[in-house]
């Protein structure tokens, strides 16, 4: 049976609902790489990112979404990372950015397992 057209559609809520989100994710990544908490969202990493020139990879946003527990779309982002480490050279707060990416990749894999 085909879906009925009622003349309207429903959009997914764009709001970040922190209380319903997967907040533990960030704390698990932080346990592996504590320097993630030092990020000040300056965007230096993203500006220097080679992968970011061609893909949606944006480390500033990845860290921020992880902190909010918005983990559903992180996979596409971090999978594009080349682990070249340019971001780490520029980070003014000394975040171990490569290890943040590696830790996020690992956590996402763990989560995907049933």
């Amino acid at each position: 049976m085909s879906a009925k057209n009622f003349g309207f559609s429903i959009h997914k809520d764009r709001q970040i609902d922190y209380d319903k989100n997967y907040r533990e994710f960030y704390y698990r990544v932080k346990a592996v790489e504590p320097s993630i908490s030092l990020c000040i969202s300056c965007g230096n990493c993203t500006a220097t990112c080679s992968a970011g020139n061609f893909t949606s990879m944006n480390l500033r946003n990845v860290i921020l979404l992880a902190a909010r527990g918005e983990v559903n779309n992180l996979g596409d982002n971090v999978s594009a990372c080349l682990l070249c480490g340019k971001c780490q050279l520029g980070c003014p707060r000394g975040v171990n950015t490569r290890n943040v990416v590696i830790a996020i990749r690992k956590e996402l894999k763990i989560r995907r397992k049933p």
Partner: protein
Amino acid sequence: MGKDVLIIGGGIAGMEASAYLSAMGYQVTLVEKANELGGHLLRWERLFPTQRHGKEVLSFLHCGIDGKIRVIKNAEPVAAVTRDDLHIVTLSTGEVITANAVLITTGYKTFDASRKEEYGYGIYNNVVTSADLEEMFSSGKEMLTSSGIVPRRVGFIHCVGSRDEKVGNIYCSKVCCVTAVKQAIELKERLPYAEAFCFYMDLRMYGMHFEELYKEAQEKHGVQFIRGRLSEAAENQDHSLLIKVEDTLTGRPLKMKMDLLVLMVGFEPSDGTQKMAELFHLETGSTRFLKMADEHTSTNVSSVQGVFLAGTCSAPRTITSTITDARAAAAKITSYLSQYSIEQREN
């Protein structure tokens, strides 16, 4: 010398300026409307960025109040006239004081947070101000919400009554950002399992060691910072709060539950400062603080001859800045009373 200086307001600036002017040989009268010297410093338990006790700075200031300074408590000026460069000031006690120079150190008051009605101060029990939180800290009691539970999540809202044209205060109050960081750290030290969030427009960590404190909050205490201005707070049935902000760095609206909400209230000119502006016919700037004769070169000089300014009656200041400003005012008054023509120097 034998000249008289009247200092109005016995807070940090008034106490420090009294000490310096008395040490320089002037006869100083310090008038304070409360029954105790110290002003706002009496209410702040710990100070940024070192977490030292406010009492330590207060006892330092008290050391400067020597026996030669005449301290009049429980009194305030009610009338002032000028005759031949002499300022004749009548106090609420009926006493009349004649002075060659007057220093205004009447300071600030904190913004009345209930004016931001959408934040719920005075409506919801678990919305408090930074000053209230400081009192909770100094009371030494266990930190509990109004429902008697230990708060698991606490939000600090920056810029309440500052940088806000809707309440008529366009200026930055300078101390609230770092105070929020300081209080978030203190909260985490008391309640290590609570989450602490700061909601800011910009983080103004301009002072020496402020940025280190901010980093310590992130690194050691896990305080999280979300860039966005609170739009509204609503109360849940269990008296916790639901807050709505835009998380401007992800570009999406965000909502979360808070057990306790702390409003970082800004500076406004105190009632005493406004009253002194009327009594002495002092000009005020667009921000309602007392106007300095020159923003760079004559910061302690008011618009009236022989009347000087120090501390937060002229602008929001840190304690450090207030103390140095009081000393600068003492030097300025000395140059005025000794008719040293430093004001008339050529460029």
